[in-house]
């Protein structure tokens, strides 16, 4: 619909013999054999593959994450390890491999400070790692709060607060208490697997997306809040303030909340990408989001991942089971 212009479709994974194995974010299905073909290059700047890191993992690479400083790349794999790659002038070098998870690592995320890393796995645990000046990584905590496969971990934009999403239908939050990490909140409400979570730019709100085809918005209420929301002890309470249902026809695999514009993008199993905008004036207790854009056939298969460019407003990347990575330019419609 309005406000969309497909820009630069990149086909680097399904075709050719490069980087065997599903593209980042896919569900692990073996890629169908495809004859390489190169679509006509679109006008404007295009994306070029700079490196292929083929020597680190033995199985599907499920998630990658850049460190805040941009020097390191972490890759989470079904081979139960997480590799840390360092950017060198002539490519990338694997500086260490984090072992310990019992089986498939599903997600990895760097804390804003750059000193902490979180991983999560089908083994139901979330691990927090610390890296020191000598690039030595040590496990700081092993959190066993979830009762099922943990799909995703993400850090708060400016605090050392960690969120995780799980097959057990909950979102959990963790922080450091004394010399260990503890689960300080459990967000219940989704009726099925929670696939992903995203904090808004302020960190006061969190969006979660699920197999139950809804996106829920949660808001943090600190102890002594003026709205009168009860808190236990010194821990804030998170309450669900909005439930976006009826928009998606299949599982929602990813949600991304733009820290520049506040737009919310979703990646869905119905091959579509949707963007939601908050209606203004914003009523904090009961925000309303409306569907601002919907690309029905963004990909020819499940969309697994969406990510907003942190510097360029409206630039969105998506990837899919169809083996393609797509870049989108989104403009907020006038009437929303």
């Amino acid at each position: 619909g309005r406000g969309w212009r497909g820009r630069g479709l990149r086909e680097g994974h399904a075709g050719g013999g490069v980087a065997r194995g599903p593209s980042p974010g896919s569900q692990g299905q073996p890629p169908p054999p495809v004859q390489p073909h190169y679509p006509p290059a679109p006008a404007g700047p295009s994306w070029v593959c700079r490196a292929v890191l083929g020597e680190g993992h033995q199985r599907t690479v499920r998630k990658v994450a850049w460190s805040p400083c941009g020097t390191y790349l972490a890759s989470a794999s079904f081979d139960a390890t997480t590799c840390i790659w360092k950017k060198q002038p002539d490519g990338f070098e694997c500086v260490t491999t984090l072992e310990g998870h019992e089986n498939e690592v599903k997600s990895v995320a760097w804390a804003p400070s750059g000193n902490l890393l979180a991983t999560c796995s089908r083994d139901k645990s979330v691990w927090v790692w610390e890296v020191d000046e000598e690039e030595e990584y040590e496990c700081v905590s092993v959190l066993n709060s979830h009762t099922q496969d943990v799909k995703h971990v993400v850090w708060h934009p400016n605090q050392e607060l960690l969120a995780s999403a799980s097959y057990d239908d909950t979102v959990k939050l963790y922080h450091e208490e004394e010399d260990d990490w503890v689960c300080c909140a459990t967000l219940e409400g989704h009726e099925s697997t929670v696939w992903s979570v995203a904090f808004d730019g302020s960190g006061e709100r969190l969006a979660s997306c699920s197999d139950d085809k809804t996106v829920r918005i949660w808001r943090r209420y600190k102890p002594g809040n003026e709205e009168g929301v009860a808190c236990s002890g010194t821990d804030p309470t998170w309450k669900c303030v909005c439930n976006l249902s009826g928009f998606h026809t299949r599982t929602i695999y990813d949600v991304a909340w733009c820290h520049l514009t506040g737009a919310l993008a979703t990646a869905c199993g119905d091959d579509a990408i949707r963007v939601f905008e908050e209606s203004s004036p914003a009523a904090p207790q009961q925000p309303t989001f409306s569907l601002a854009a919907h690309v029905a056939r963004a990909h020819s298969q499940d969309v697994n991942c969406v990510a907003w460019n942190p510097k360029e407003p409206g630039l969105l990347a998506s990837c899919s089971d169809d083996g393609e990575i797509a870049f989108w330019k989104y403009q907020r419609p006038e009437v929303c």
Partner: protein
Amino acid sequence: MASPFSGVLQLTDLDDFIGPSQECIKPVKVEKNHPGKAAAKIRIEADGSYFQINQDGGAQKLEKAKITLNDCLACSGCITSAESVLITQQSHEELYKMLAFNKTAAPNEQKLVVVSVSPQSRASLAARCKMNVLETAKKLTTFLKSLGVHYVFDTTFSRNFSLLESQREFVKRFRKQSEDKKALPMLASACPGWICYAEKTHGSFIIPYISTAKSPQQVMGSLVKGHFAEQQHLTPDQIYHVTVMPCYDKKLEASRPDFFNQEYQTRDVDCVITTGEVLRLLEQEGISLSDVDPAPLDTMFSSITEEELTSHSGGGSGGYLEHIYKYAAKELFGIQVDTIQYKPLKNKDFQEVTLEKDGVVLLQFALAYGFRNIQNLVQKLKRGKSPYHYVEVMACPSGCLNGGGQIKIEGESSKDLLQQVEKLYESLKTEIPEKNQTVNELYEHWLGGMDSEKAAKALHTEYHAVEKTSTGFNIKW
């Protein structure tokens, strides 16, 4: 419900699936009396029993396939997924059954029931019942004997052997570290949560580093079923040996094939019950421990000097680091150490102790409790970056006093409760293993000397890497 096994054991091979994991390598073999050539027909009766229909029409009742605790230990599979399978085999219910059996059995069929109580369980009970340790021990003796138990011992006594064997083993290893790359660091062996995890996850890499000294539970097993049985003119299978432990992992330890006496078809420890299960026993009998009359303690295999219970220094997990450190300092460097300075590192469950002389580090020891610290230790070891000579490894954060089988009190913070239990545990006078007369006598008269073959067999054990077999089930699609 959260698993009762230690965090370290829980993390080995978790699965989304309920029940025996797809990785269970026990495709249960059932002995068939008449190996058939052709495919057999199976008929299921209304009561759920299975019959194999032979070619000649005859029906043969099929044995129900069972997975026992022993099978599970041999497997890299579901050990923590199928908890119900494991726990039923060893519980206070089993003890009840044995005691009930004894009441009605013929004299020559009756078993001598011996219960060995760990000092950690005793401290936990003392905290719960609001008594001091000596009172708790005496009243527990009365209670157990009222149920039909014949002797109540204290594993503090058998711990003397574990400590002595560990310290001597360490010095031996230290002296041959130039020839044997895997002599050091020596890693503690008393914690079965750590052992099972090590065997399954790191196998042949880590096993050479682990001390071969048996845990106090298993030394007591050898003592009770060996020396004590002989003294009582009984065979090992005529004794039913129960231990009271602060965790569930000890149940797995007792079930190890290495601790099964083939000749008499009996385990060195027949049944392990947790501190919590003892409380359940008390509740089922409607008894409050504080109301019970105290009984004299069985001193034979207990740590008592002049009516005073004794313990060992070095914390609630046995004191391995402290004893080995002091012994090694003396034996290897002629240095007498009286107090040990601990340096906490990243967290309170990871602490270092260093022996330095003239700026040279002579010994570097560490305590590593809890999964994250064990992880870091093993990873450092794998990268060749571990600076330690000895590490006291325990699966539970805060050690054995905080085991999964200890009593929890509703309304009390676990931190406060742990502090109370620690205080009670440390309220006893400590003794030095070398000075224990009974221990020295046993080395002479039971084992024929400290370096004898009998001593090696009775006080040491082996570890086995668990191989993950490739079956159709464990290919991860």
